[in-house]
């Protein structure tokens, strides 16, 4: 049996047309291709670009055990009732020791497994620095091409790369649970800033009202930019509060066409571009041939003849010249 090289231009074209026609197997394979940086991944991303932008991307983040997966399960149910198609990308941490991972978020979303309007994919965060954003960005683009109305992006929300990922979402839900004073302390310092909607989950627990007022108090101390942040309560396990949350989310989807919404939507694109450009410069610097101008610059910097700032500016200029120089 002869096999077509899966990285070839024609194989990618076939995969893309199957993906755009909504074939689940093609979507799964295309995600793997992008996730693993397999041959043809860049060509695939380029080919789907004209078909992107339909999905509203929502980041869902919060400390472990707060109920992210359960909330997503309930949110899927609510959005499906409204006739929306949903994609989920659930990121779980990789072990820094073995590199392996247990991807267990689906345990809580099991009831949607057989629903053709729901596609869930688990993604291990892997080790590579900054790589998670690039991978997740690509995977979300591939999902978007398959045409869902919403893509829910679940992350633990700790660590720089995960905060970066939130830039790609049109809005971010930050979850917290009542009764955990430390919990609020934790979200206060980092991920509170990225929240568009603060969700107090497990609202059937005592102290939910206290947590809500603490959060509102905190928002009151912040700049006008925080004034648009909503605080909602949910009990994801029963579906309580989900219609109100879904209303907020649908409003965000509608607002995407306003100037503010568009500016917001381009944040992720900006970061993706900055990352890709940074990669290019890094690669050129690290792989510069002996006695090339970039190599000479590195030597001058190593000898202390030029300061880091000036050398970096010079490097960017040299890389740009090289790009012009017939490549």
């Amino acid at each position, binding site marked *: 049996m002869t096999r077509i090289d899966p990285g070839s231009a024609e194989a990618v074209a076939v995969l893309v047309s199957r993906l755009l026609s909504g074939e689940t*197997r093609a979507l*799964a394979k295309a995600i793997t291709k992008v996730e*693993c940086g397999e041959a043809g991944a860049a060509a695939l991303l380029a080919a789907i670009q004209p078909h992107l932008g339909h999905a509203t991307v929502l980041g869902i983040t919060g400390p472990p055990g707060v109920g992210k997966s359960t909330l997503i399960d309930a949110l899927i149910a609510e959005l499906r009732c409204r006739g929306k198609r949903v994609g989920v990308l659930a990121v779980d941490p990789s072990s820094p020791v073995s*590199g392996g991972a247990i991807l267990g978020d689906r345990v809580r979303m099991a009831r949607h497994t057989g629903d053709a309007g729901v596609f869930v994919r*688990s993604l291990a965060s892997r080790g590579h620095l900054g790589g998670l954003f690039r991978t997740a960005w690509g995977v979300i683009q591939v999902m978007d091409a398959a045409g869902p109305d919403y893509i829910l992006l679940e992350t633990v929300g700790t660590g720089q790369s995960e905060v970066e990922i939130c830039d790609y979402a049109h809005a971010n839900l930050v979850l917290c649970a009542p009764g955990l004073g430390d919990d609020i302390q934790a979200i206060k310092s980092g991920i509170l800033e990225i929240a568009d909607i603060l969700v107090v989950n497990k609202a059937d627990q005592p102290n939910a009202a206290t947590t809500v007022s603490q959060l509102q108090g905190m928002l009151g101390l912040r700049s006008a930019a925080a004034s648009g942040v909503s605080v909602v309560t949910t009990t994801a396990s029963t579906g309580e509060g989900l219609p109100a949350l879904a209303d907020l989310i649908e409003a965000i989807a509608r607002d995407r066409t306003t100037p503010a919404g568009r500016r917001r939507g381009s944040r992720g694109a900006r970061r993706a571009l900055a990352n890709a450009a940074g990669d290019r410069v890094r690669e050129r610097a690290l792989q510069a041939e002996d006695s090339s101008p970039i190599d000479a610059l590195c030597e001058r910097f190593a000898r202390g003849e030029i300061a880091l700032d000036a050398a970096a500016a010079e490097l960017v200029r040299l890389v740009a010249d090289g790009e012009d120089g017939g490549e």
Partner: protein
Amino acid sequence: MSSPGLQGGRPAKVLVTKIGFDGHDRGSRIVAAFLRDAGMEVVYTGPWQTVENVVNLALQEDVDVIGISSLATDHLIVPKLMEALKTAGLGHIAVVVGGIVPDSEVGLLTDAGVAYVFHPGASRDQIVNTISGLAANARASA
């Protein structure tokens, strides 16, 4: 880093699950941890899955290997799973079964296309190495 989990661009991806009514999932959790510690990415679902669910999970997650834990005759449903995987165009995925499988019923599974059956006493190395090898083959033929 060289790890038995690494297959080309990504670690081996394995779905560890149980079909049927038996909820004793301690064994599958231990195996899931073995595989993770060997550097593999394990999609873990918990028990009580249907054949259709397992096919959909494997389809969406694009796994290389499916590991079915069976302690109470659930393995007898596995031939149906093999059939359903082929129908879904997922014939490249290697399926292994582990747990309590009487010797007289191993043939039933291997005839249906099950790649390997692990019995009580299977060592960690045996499980990890077998699944790692199967994952590499499955990836190559995806």
